[in-house]
C-alpha cells in the first residue's frame, strides 16, 4: 500500500477554513432536482424519512378521528361498514408499517452516524433505495384507499377473511404487497445500521462506550432482521394463495388457518419491540441530558435491551390465547409474556434512580419523558393483565386491548419520539422549537390521550368488541363513546399544535447553537445542523460521554483523504481503526432500482409473470448501480 498516491489530498496540513471548503466540495449534495433525487447523504434522507413518516402520522390521525366520529353515537350512519373496515385497516397498517417502524429507523438514519462519529451511514445508496421503496409502498396504500380499493381485512389480515374466497378483488393483495415494500426498506435500513454500528464507530468507542440510543437501535435492527422474514413468508404465501391457487391456508387441502397467525405474530410481537426499543433509547438519552448525569446502570440497561429483544421472540402465542391451542402450551407463553415485565421494570427503575440522583431540568423533551413514564407503566400493567390466559379470554379483541396497546405504543413510543423531536430538532434544522408551545402541546396531549384511551379499558370490560363499525343503542356504551370522541379532539389539538410548532420553528425558530442542551454525546460536537461531512475531523472517544471530559476540546483523528468521501473503519469490539474506507457518492441508480422494483411488485398483484419480466429491469438497474464508474471513491 503506497503511503501517498499522486494527487491524494489529506486533512493534515490545512487550516480550518480551507479544510471546510474541501470537505464541502467532496461531500455536499448538488443543488437542484437531480441532486435531490440522487443524494446519498444520511442527513437529507433521514430528514426526508422523518417528514414522510410524520405526514403518514397525520393522515393516520385523520382516520382515527373519522372512526371516532362514527363511533360517537350508536348506529351512526356517517360511514358505512365497507369504508369503516377500510379505515380501521388503513389506520393500523399505516401507523405500524408507514409511521412507527419507519420513523424510528429514520431517527436512527439521521442520528446513529452522528452519535458514533462517522461521516455517512454504511451503504448510503441502499439507504436512498430504502427511502424510495418506503415512499412507493406508502403511496400504493394511500392511492388505493383513495380509489376505494384500500385493504379492508384488518392490519393483521387474518385468513380466511383475507384469503382468496372471502376477500374478492385486489384489496388484500395491496395490503400484502405494501408489506413487501416496507419490509424491503426496513430490512435494508436494519442492515445499514448494524454495519454502521459494528464497523464505523469512532476510534475508541468500544462496546461499553456506545450511547444507549445506538445500542437500542442495534438491538432493534437485529429484531427486524430476525422478525421480518416471518411476515415475508406469510405475505408471500397469502399472495400465492390468492393469485396462483396454492393451499397454505386452506384446511380442506392440508393447509391451516392458524399457520397465518403463528407466522404473523412471530413477526408481529417483535414488531412491538421494534417500535418500543428505539423509544427506550430516546428516553435514556433525554433522561441523561436533563438530569445532568449519566443513566444509572449502563450495563443493566444494555442487558435489558438485549433480554427484551430475545424474549420478544418467545411471546407470540399470547395473541392467540383464544384460538384453541393446548392450554398447557399457553401457560408457558403466559410465563414468558409476564417475564418481559422484568427487563422493562429494570429499565424503569434505572431511570427512576437516575432522576433520583440527578438534577432534573423540566424542559419540553423531559416533560414528554415524564408523560411516557406515567402512561407506559399503565400500558405495561395492562400488558401483564392480558398475558394471563383467563384474563385475556375476557378482554382479547375488545376495547380493553385497544386501550392497552395505545398506552404501550403512544405512551411508550410516540411520547418519547415527540420528546426526541423537541430534543434533536435544533440538530436537524439549526433552529429551536418553542418552549411555550411545547409545554402546551405536552399538556394537551397528555390530557387528551388519557381522557381518550383510559375509558376504553372500561368499555372493553363492559363487553365492547374491537373493529365493530357501530353498536346498538341498547348497549350501555354510548355515553363513554361520546366522551372518548370528544376527548379525541383534545388529543388531536395537541398534535395539531405540535405540527404548527414544528413547521413554524423550522422556518423561523430562533437559531440553535451547536449544543443547546449541554448534552454529552457526539452529535452535539458538530454544528447545528451538521455540515454534509458531519465532522471536520473524525472524533476519537475515550469515555461513555465524550463531551464530558473537556467541553471545549474534542480529541480527533487526522490523516484522512479529503479528495474522496473517506471515513474510518474500526474493529467490532474495541473500535480500533482498521482502514480508511471511501463512502459511495451520489447516484441516481437507487431511484431507478426502486422504480423498477415498485413496478414489478405492483404488477405482480395482477399476474405472476410480472416477477419474471419485472426482474429484468430490476437486474439492469442493480448492475448499473454496482458497475464501477472510475471515480476516486473506488480507489483502494
Amino acid at each position, binding site marked *: 500500500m503506497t503511503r501517498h498516491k499522486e494527487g491524494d489530498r489529506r486533512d493534515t496540513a490545512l487550516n480550518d477554513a480551507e479544510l471546510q471548503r474541501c470537505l464541502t466540495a467532496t461531500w455536499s449534495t448538488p443543488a437542484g432536482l437531480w441532486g435531490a433525487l440522487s443524494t446519498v447523504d444520511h442527513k437529507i434522507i433521514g430528514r426526508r424519512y422523518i417528514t414522510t413518516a410524520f405526514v403518514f402520522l397525520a393522515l393516520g390521525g385523520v382516520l382515527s378521528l373519522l372512526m371516532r366520529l362514527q363511533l360517537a353515537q350508536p348506529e351512526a350512519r356517517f360511514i358505512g361498514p365497507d369504508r369503516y373496515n377500510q379505515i380501521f385497516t388503513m389506520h393500523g397498517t399505516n401507523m405500524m408499517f408507514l409511521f412507527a417502524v419507519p420513523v424510528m429507523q429514520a431517527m436512527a438514519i439521521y442520528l446513529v452516524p452522528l452519535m458514533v462519529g462517522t461521516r455517512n451511514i454504511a451503504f448510503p445508496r441502499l439507504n436512498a433505495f430504502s427511502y424510495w421503496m418506503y415512499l412507493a409502498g406508502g403511496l400504493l396504500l394511500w392511492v388505493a384507499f383513495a380509489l376505494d380499493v384500500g385493504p379492508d381485512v384488518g392490519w393483521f389480515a387474518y385468513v380466511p377473511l383475507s384469503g382468496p374466497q372471502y376477500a374478492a378483488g385486489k384489496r388484500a393483495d395491496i395490503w400484502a404487497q405494501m408489506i413487501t415494500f416496507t419490509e424491503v426498506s426496513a430490512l435494508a435500513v436494519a*442492515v445499514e445500521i448494524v*454495519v454502521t454500528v459494528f464497523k464505523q464507530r469512532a476510534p475508541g468507542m468500544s462496546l461499553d462506550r456506545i450511547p444507549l440510543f445506538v445500542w437500542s437501535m442495534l438491538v432493534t435492527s437485529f429484531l427486524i432482521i430476525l422478525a421480518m422474514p416471518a411476515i*415475508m413468508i406469510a405475505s408471500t404465501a397469502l399472495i400465492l394463495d390468492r393469485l396462483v391457487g396454492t393451499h397454505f391456508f386452506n384446511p380442506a387441502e392440508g393447509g*391451516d388457518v392458524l399457520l397465518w397467525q403463528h407466522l404473523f405474530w412471530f413477526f408481529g410481537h417483535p414488531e412491538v419491540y421494534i417500535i418500543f426499543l428505539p423509544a427506550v433509547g430516546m428516553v435514556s438519552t433525554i433522561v441523561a441530558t436533563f438530569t445532568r448525569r449519566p443513566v444509572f446502570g449502563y450495563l443493566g440497561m444494555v442487558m435489558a435491551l438485549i433480554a427484551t429483544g430475545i424474549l420478544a421472540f418467545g411471546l407470540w402465542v399470547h395473541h392467540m390465547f383464544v384460538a384453541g391451542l393446548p392450554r398447557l402450551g399457553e401457560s408457558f407463553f403466559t410465563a414468558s409474556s409476564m417475564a418481559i415485565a422484568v427487563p422493562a421494570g429494570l429499565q424503569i427503575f434505572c431511570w427512576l434512580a437516575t432522576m433520583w440522583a440527578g438534577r432534573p431540568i423540566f424542559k419540553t423533551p423531559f416533560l414528554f419523558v415524564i408523560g411516557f413514564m406515567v402512561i407506559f407503566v399503565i400500558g405495561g400493567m395492562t400488558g401483564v393483565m392480558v398475558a394471563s390466559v383467563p384474563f385475556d379470554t375476557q378482554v382479547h379483541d375488545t376495547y380493553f386491548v385497544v386501550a392497552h396497546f395505545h398506552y404501550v405504543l403512544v405512551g411508550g413510543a410516540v411520547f418519547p419520539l415527540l420528546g426526541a423531536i423537541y430534543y434533536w430538532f435544533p440538530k436537524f434544522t439549526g433552529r429551536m422549537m418553542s418552549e411555550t408551545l411545547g409545554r402546551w402541546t405536552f399538556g394537551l396531549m397528555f390530557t387528551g390521550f388519557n381522557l381518550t384511551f383510559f375509558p376504553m379499558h372500561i368499555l372493553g370490560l363492559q363487553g365492547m368488541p374491537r373493529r365493530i363499525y357501530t353498536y346498538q343503542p341498547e348497549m350501555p356504551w354510548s355515553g363513554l363513546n361520546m366522551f372518548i370522541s370528544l376527548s379525541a379532539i383534545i388529543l388531536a389539538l395537541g398534535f395539531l399544535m405540535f405540527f404548527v410548532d414544528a413547521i413554524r420553528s423550522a422556518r423561523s425558530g430562533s437559531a440553535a447553537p451547536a449544543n443547546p442542551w449541554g448534552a454529552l454525546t457526539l452529535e452535539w460536537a458538530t454544528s447545528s445542523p451538521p455540515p454534509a461531512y458531519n465532522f471536520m475531523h473524525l472524533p476519537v472517544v475515550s469515555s461513555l460521554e465524550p463531551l464530558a471530559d473537556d467541553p471545549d476540546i474534542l480529541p480527533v483523528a*487526522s490523516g484522512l483523504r479529503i479528495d474522496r468521501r473517506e471515513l474510518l473503519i474500526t474493529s467490532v469490539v474495541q473500535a480500533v481503526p*482498521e482502514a480508511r474506507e471511501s463512502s459511495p457518492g451520489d447516484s441516481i441508480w437507487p431511484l431507478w432500482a426502486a422504480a423498477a422494483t415498485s413496478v414489478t411488485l405492483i404488477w405482480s398483484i395482477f399476474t405472476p409473470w410480472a416477477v419474471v419480466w419485472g426482474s429484468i429491469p430490476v437486474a439492469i438497474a442493480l448492475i448499473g448501480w454496482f458497475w464501477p464508474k472510475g471515480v476516486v471513491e473506488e480507489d483502494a
Partner: protein
Amino acid sequence: MNHTVVLDVADLPEHGLGSASQTYWGTLAFMLIEGTGFALSIVVYLYLMSLATQWPLGTAPPDLLAGTTLTALLIVSLVPNLFLARWARHQDLWKVRIGLIVMTVLGVAPLVLRAFEFPAMHIKWDQNAYGSIVWVMLGLHTTHIITNLVETAVLTALMFSRHGDSPRRYGDVSDNAMYWNFVVITWLPMYACLYWVPRL
C-alpha cells in the same frame, strides 16, 4: 469547538479487506435475513406435516435422482469456490478469472437439474398444501441460485474489464464466494427436509 489531534490514521489502508470491509458484514447480515427465511420455510413444512394424517399429502415421496445429483453437484462446487476465495485473497487476477468462469458454469448446472426436480415431486403447487410448500421451498432456493449466478456473471465481466484488478473487486469476489457457500449450505437441510423427511 476546538480540535486536538490525538490519532493519525494516514497509514491505514484505503480499503478494508475481509472482516474490515463493510460489504463483508453487509453480506453476513443479508445471509442472516435469508437464512431466517429458509429456516422458517422448513418450519412451515414441518408444521404442515404435523397436521397432516399422511405425508406427503396425496402423492408418493419425491424421486431422489435429480435432487441428489444436484446436492452432490452443489457440494462439489464448494471446492472450486474455496479455491476462488483463496485466489481472491491472494489477488491473483488470472486464477480469479478462471475460477469465476468455472463458478458461472457451476451456477447454471444446478438450474438444469432443478428443472427436473419440480416434476420429481409428483405434485403441483395448486393441488394441496404439500405441493404448495414444496414448490415454494424449491422456488425460494432457485431464486437464490439465480441471483448468485447473475452476480457471478457480472463479476466475471468486471474482472475482464479495466476495473478488474483492484482490491475492491477481489473483496467482491470473496464476498460472492462466501454467499455461494451459504446458498449451498442452506440447501442441505432443505434437501433433507424435501427428500428424506417424507420417507421417515
